[in-house]
């Protein structure tokens, strides 16, 4: 292993676990799935390394400021299921004290490779960014619990400052105690818009409107899955009560179709009522003054580490592809497990159950002495089935409106990084030169910038691919850009951005 030499990199490759100490499992991602998986694996006697890029365990759902800042940035009121989070944190701390858990926060995993006796996971420690220290972890089993990120559909003005993802607004609030604006309009589709609206309203923002593209009756088409998940109803009712208390109007079958700015920030949001296909209805456009906009169209599973390892994918039913797993969260690659949103977006409760089941599989496959009894896994299997049915019902109730490209003008940027317009993508499609987002990338540079198509990929896919074909992200050799020095340690080709 050569020494990293890049700028900001100290010449040291560090393995945080003492030499000679065996380690059984690396878990990437300390959100609900990863935390639950790590605790179950530790309870079963394994030695675990839990790695996360954040400053505290919790992932996006339970995002918290670092432990040292909890008093300065109080965020307790923002969270759902905080009891479960605290129990997992307490269990992790207890295991950390025994020395069997190594918790690596502020560590960004940029690739993982499989060989005969397990996996090598390459990370960089950015705890003192911009310094980077290369960290290499090895274990016979790897569990990827990297979650998901907001799915975006472009609209004219979506790149104006003050337009954020709904998840971005939530992360500023949960992680930093910051309300990003005074007058906020939220738009997109899916149940996630409601907690974001409720949290912003409860913390002093004026939420002027929540624009939900789906029809309110859509949930009623699949009543069974909804009725079997009373906890979700209770959660929804809590958000609805908060929104009612702050007089936040939720407009269904309505979308943000444009934004306009003054002095470098969004100032006006244009909304319109939608027909059944999602086309704006004539004479329904409203202009709403706002300094901040939050948009989200569901989520895209974060598969960056899984794709290069070669595991099979499956249609998640919401327009995205997710990792294919068996009923024990095993991928098609031996020794590789995944749980939570990487298997299809379904929420934190599902992720916790899947995380525990994944760890039970690891314990079984490694023939660990401390395998749990059968009662808990049986309950988790039932919970997974119930939550997956709920997620499918949600996906059907909150589809991407098929006619959403009707909002685009030819000069609307689709790829924010390379500034590729809708017109350019449409031309590539019209010339029959491009039939998928990878070919569009080659022709137009859409998806070739810093974000590697994570923001524009689903939209470009919709613009060029057959309608019911789910989005598969491009394979990225490096999940996060690293300095040349850290890359020098990899046998892989050197860069994923040009």
């Amino acid at each position: 292993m050569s020494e990293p030499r890049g700028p900001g990199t100290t010449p040291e490759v560090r393995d945080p676990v003492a030499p000679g100490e065996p380690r059984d499992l690396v878990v990437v991602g300390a959100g609900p799935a990863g935390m639950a998986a790590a605790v179950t694996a530790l309870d079963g006697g394994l030695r675990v390394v839990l790695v996360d890029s954040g400053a505290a365990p919790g992932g996006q759902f339970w995002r918290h400021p670092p432990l040292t800042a909890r008093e300065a940035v109080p965020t307790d009121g923002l969270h759902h299921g905080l009891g479960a989070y605290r129990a997992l944190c307490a269990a992790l701390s207890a295991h950390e004290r025994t020395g069997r858990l190594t918790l690596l926060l502020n560590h960004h995993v940029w690739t993982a490779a499989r060989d005969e006796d397990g996996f090598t996971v390459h990370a960089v420690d950015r705890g003192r960014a911009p310094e980077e220290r290369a960290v290499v972890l090895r274990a016979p089993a790897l569990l990827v619990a990297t979650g998901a990120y907001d799915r975006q559909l472009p609209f004219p003005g979506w790149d104006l400052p003050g337009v954020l993802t709904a998840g971005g607004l939530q992360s500023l609030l949960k992680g930093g105690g910051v309300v990003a604006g005074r007058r906020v309009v939220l738009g997109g589709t899916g149940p996630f818009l409601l907690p974001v609206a409720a949290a912003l309203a409860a913390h002093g923002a004026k939420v002027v409107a929540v624009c939900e593209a789906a029809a309110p009756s859509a949930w009623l088409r699949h009543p069974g899955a909804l009725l079997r998940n009373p906890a979700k109803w209770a959660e929804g009712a809590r958000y609805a009560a908060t929104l009612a208390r702050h007089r936040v109007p939720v407009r269904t079958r309505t979308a943000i179709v444009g934004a306009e700015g003054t002095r470098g920030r969004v100032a006006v949001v244009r909304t319109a009522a939608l027909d059944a296909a999602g086309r704006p209805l004539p004479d329904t456009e409203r202009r709403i003054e706002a300094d901040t906009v939050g948009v989200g169209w569901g989520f895209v599973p974060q598969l960056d580490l899984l794709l290069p390892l070669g595991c099979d994918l499956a249609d998640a039913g919401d327009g995205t592809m997710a990792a294919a797993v068996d009923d024990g969260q095993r991928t098609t690659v031996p020794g590789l497990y995944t749980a939570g949103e990487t298997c299809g977006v379904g929420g934190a409760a599902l992720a916790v159950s899947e995380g525990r089941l994944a760890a039970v599989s690891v314990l079984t496959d490694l023939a660990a002495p401390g395998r749990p009894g059968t009662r808990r896994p049986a309950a988790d299997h039932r919970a997974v089935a119930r939550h997956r049915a709920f997620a499918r019902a949600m996906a059907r109730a909150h589809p991407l409106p098929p006619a959403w490209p009707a909002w685009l003008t030819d000069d609307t940027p689709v790829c924010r990084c390379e500034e590729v317009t809708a017109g350019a993508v449409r031309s590539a499609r019209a010339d029959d030169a491009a039939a998928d987002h990878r070919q569009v990338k080659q022709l137009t540079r859409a998806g070739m910038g810093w974000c590697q198509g994570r923001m524009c990929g689903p939209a470009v896919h919709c613009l060029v691919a057959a309608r019911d074909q789910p989005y598969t992200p491009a394979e990225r050799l490096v999940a996060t850009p690293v300095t040349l020095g850290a890359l020098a340690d990899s046998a892989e080709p050197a860069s994923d951005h040009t």
Partner: protein
Amino acid sequence: MTVFTVDGEPLPFVAGQTLAAALVASGRVAWRTTREGRRPRGIFCGIGVCYDCLVTVDGTRGQRACLVQARAGMAVTTGEADDE
């Protein structure tokens, strides 16, 4: 008060905040321009995925402001037209 500097000007932050959280708390949502269209960019995804919020930290370019924890005395420079 704990501060880092942005283009030489002190910016206060609460311990535990990221650079982006401190910038947004001060009312700034954009701090960079794109190469071609010179369009303003700043905070967008907030979770390290979109790379819109890039800044230079202590001389190292291409740092995602939404991921870097603010520390007292950091020197942040913005407005890099081209990040690589």
